[in-house]
């Protein structure tokens, strides 16, 4: 624990080094992107300008969205694994009343009410109250977490809308643009926003790394967390704290929907690539950062399109790619595994049928495989299979050098025969086992074994063999 504290202090010290500031941002000029009103494809000049990060504003927006994607992708991993994906949604809606109350409060003190840290503090406080209410409703009523989220989201947001209605009719203070706090203004991100996101991303990174072990155990085994003597509530609160922090900081910089999307989509996309939490952590934060950069870049090229939506779309495309091509559980890899398994079953069925036919004939001799041929006709009638599957089985077995294909029939190769003996043996071991131990009737046993014989491991087979010998 002490080490972690030092680590934390050191990181904050690094973070507060003010010398970094002028290095990163040097030109405090032209802050808002120009708004075009008709859709033009960007010229190559524009393209180059964006790519080379020549604009001060582009640089800030890209940096800000990248950092935000990085941070939310990181904390999102834990949040989604803890099955709290929609907390971000509820919390970001719940920040509205806080923003408006902060505004009203500051106006009544005589300011303009647009003091950013004040509004942020309001958002943070009311999001925290929202989190508290979620936890209370979940723990102390018979309602489930989803209902708690929905209630907090709608009631808090409704209250915020009602308060906003008041401010719009207020004589003092100009409330116009207050709602952009919720809907974001990515294209006109300021240096202070980017700086804020940088700080919060750093805090999230530090805390996530520090509590990696604890969060991991909390996500996968709540009881074990308790047994280790850690406070589930405390860790949950810490996780929620990080989520609320990222959400509120992200809200006014990039908008509500983007916050929710970047908390959920990158971790879920990462899930398709790996089952290892550390890798998932890495992939998720990278995916978040990439969608931040690409989306913001595209929106800089085509300023007419809303940046938040574009970032979500890029994120969505990355999700689609992961869904299809993910190396762990993507659609194609699943399809491939499934097909491979189907082929294995077909081959095994073919070889076993061949073995059974061959051994029922007098003319078959084990030491002279080449001279014995099995008709397609006979093979087809031996089992109830479709012509198509028999053809596929033959082709695949030929490819694997298990049989020799001739015009009229099939001939075993040496390895094919050995394989068929093994399969036949498996089949019979299972049959005997089910007969003796599972009490399956003689007439039914073949059917059961047909299903099970393909999925057995060598270890189980050894055991079955032992069983048989005794």
């Amino acid at each position, binding site marked *: 624990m002490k080490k972690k504290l030092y680590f934390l202090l050191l990181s904050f010290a690094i973070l507060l080094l003010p010398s970094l500031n002028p290095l990163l941002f040097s030109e405090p000029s032209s802050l808002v992107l120009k708004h075009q009103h008709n859709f033009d494809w960007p010229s190559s000049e524009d393209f180059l300008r964006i790519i080379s990060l020549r604009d001060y504003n582009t640089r800030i927006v890209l940096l800000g969205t990248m950092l935000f994607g990085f941070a939310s992708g990181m904390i999102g991993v834990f949040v989604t694994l803890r099955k709290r994906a929609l907390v971000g949604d509820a919390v970001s809606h719940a920040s509205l009343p806080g923003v408006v109350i902060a505004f009203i409060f500051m106006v009544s003190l005589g300011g303009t009410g647009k003091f950013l840290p004040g509004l942020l503090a309001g958002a943070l406080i009311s999001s925290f109250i929202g989190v508290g209410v979620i936890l209370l409703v979940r723990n102390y009523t018979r309602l489930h977490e989803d209902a708690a989220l929905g209630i907090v989201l709608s009631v808090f947001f409704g209250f915020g809308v009602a308060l906003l209605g008041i401010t719009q009719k207020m004589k003092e203070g100009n409330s116009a643009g207050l709602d952009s706090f919720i809907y974001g203004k990515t294209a006109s991100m300021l240096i202070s926003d980017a700086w804020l996101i940088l700080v919060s991303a750093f805090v999230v990174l530090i805390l996530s790394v520090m509590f990696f072990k604890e969060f991991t155990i909390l996500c996968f085994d709540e009881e074990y967390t308790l047994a280790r003597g850690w406070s589930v509530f405390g860790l949950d609160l810490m996780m929620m704290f990080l989520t609320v922090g990222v959400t509120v900081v992200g809200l006014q910089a990039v908008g509500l929907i983007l916050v929710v999307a970047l908390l959920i989509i990158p971790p879920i996309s990462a899930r398709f690539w790996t089952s290892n939490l550390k890798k998932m952590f890495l992939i998720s934060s990278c995916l978040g950062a990439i969608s931040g950069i690409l989306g913001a870049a595209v929106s800089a090229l085509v300023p007419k399109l809303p940046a*938040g939506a574009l970032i979500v779309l890029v994120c969505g495309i990355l999700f689609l790619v992961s869904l299809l091509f993910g190396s762990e559980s993507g659609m194609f890899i699943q399809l491939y595994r499934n097909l491979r398994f189907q082929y294995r079953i077909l081959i095994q069925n073919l070889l076993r049928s061949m073995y059974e036919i061959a051994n029922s004939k007098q003319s078959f001799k084990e030491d002279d495989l080449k001279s014995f041929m099995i008709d397609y006709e006979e093979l087809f009638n031996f089992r109830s299979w479709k012509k198509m599957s028999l053809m596929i089985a033959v082709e695949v077995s030929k490819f694997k050098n298990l049989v020799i294909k001739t015009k009229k029939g099939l001939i075993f190769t040496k390895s094919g025969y050995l394989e068929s003996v093994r399969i036949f043996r498996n089949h019979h071991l299972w049959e005997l086992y089910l007969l003796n131990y599972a009490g399956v009737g003689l007439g039914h046993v073949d059917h059961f074994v047909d299903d099970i014989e393909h999925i057995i491991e060598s270890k189980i087979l050894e055991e079955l063999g032992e069983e048989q010998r005794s």
Partner: protein
Amino acid sequence: MEWTVLDFWIVSAGILASLSCALLGNFLILKRMSMMGDAISHSVLPGLAIAFFLTSSKASFSMFLGAAVLGVVTSILTQWIHKHGNVDQGASMGVVFTILFAIGLVLIVQAADSVDLDPGCVLYGAVEYIALDMITFVDFEIPRAIVVLSLVFLLNSCFVLLFFKELRITTFDTQYATSLGFNSDLMHYALMGLIAITVVAAFESVGSIIVIAMLIVPGATAYLLTDRLSLMIFLSMFFAILSAVLGHFSAVYFPPFFGFPDTNTSGMMATLSGVIFFVVVIVSPRYGLFSSLLNKMVTRFRVVQEDVLSIIFRSEEENSLGATKEHILLYFIHHPLWLSIAMKFLEFNKKINRRGNVYVLTAIGNSESITLMRSHRLWESYLSTEIQAPHSHFHDTADRLEHIHDADIQETLDLEGRDSEFDPSGKKIPPESED
């Protein structure tokens, strides 16, 4: 402020929208998919945009169709990612609705600058403007929103009435429903389609915040009060009407109370539904915080009394004299404040008598503490046969479990755990009392 026709229209639009939503929301609560309302209210956007592209008008029918299709698509995609992506339902919902909403935003920006489907307006809603769009119906001028919302309400109530049995069975036990031959998927998608239609109807007229709140909060409030689905639906409709009416009143009268101008009704309706929920959470007779607190206190008090009785009983067993207050305090595990209350109460009920500074059990108190003793020793012998741990390990557990001593449990314990007349520490287990 005067009660005008406008107020009447606003309140009726609010009531109709709330009723339509609450009706369907019950099933969302029970299916544990409460966030689906929020998700669908975002994900219908591309449906609206595409409908607008195809027909280049804001005609209601095509919009409803587009929304319904997108509602069903949302729930299909959510299910699919949930199943194949190895993630929980909330996460897959989040993936689907954010991406669809982003597509919708881009499409709408592309559509035309003049389209007034901007998300801010949609989310904030404006019940107050419904009187701007009137149509003539027979001889009356009625806001178009009222007509649309009435139709939607009619549609929803017909759906719930006609398919009540199917909805109930598919909501509570999908597998059982399937085995009976009901198509649960079809019911689910029909529900989602209707929710999407309701969302869009409310979008246009009263703002989506009412939809999201009314889909969840009245149903959740009703769920705290009853275990019957039909009653839950009626209660949720009652709460929906209540929040709509109170919402409008508080929007008009509440802020001026603090010296602020009045505010919009949509937000206040959502807020009031939350207030009603909060009240019910506290006072609900069966699942409320107050009643569960009361239950806890009553049980606690019974436990304290029983502990006092058994302490006196034990000391009588040892020295046949009874116990002083100091002696009781020595073994008393609760806060000392409880002790004096419990003693007063026991004395009042004639379970203990006071002789000087010594307390003894009366006949009633004695038979009660024998029951307790029996319970304690039965539990001990049950624990020793079941857990096979030394006596010291489960004495405390038995101390706590002894307060569970209804006749059924005692009989079970007697049959299962006991193999002799004595408990593990060698003390006799008292026989069952006569009464």
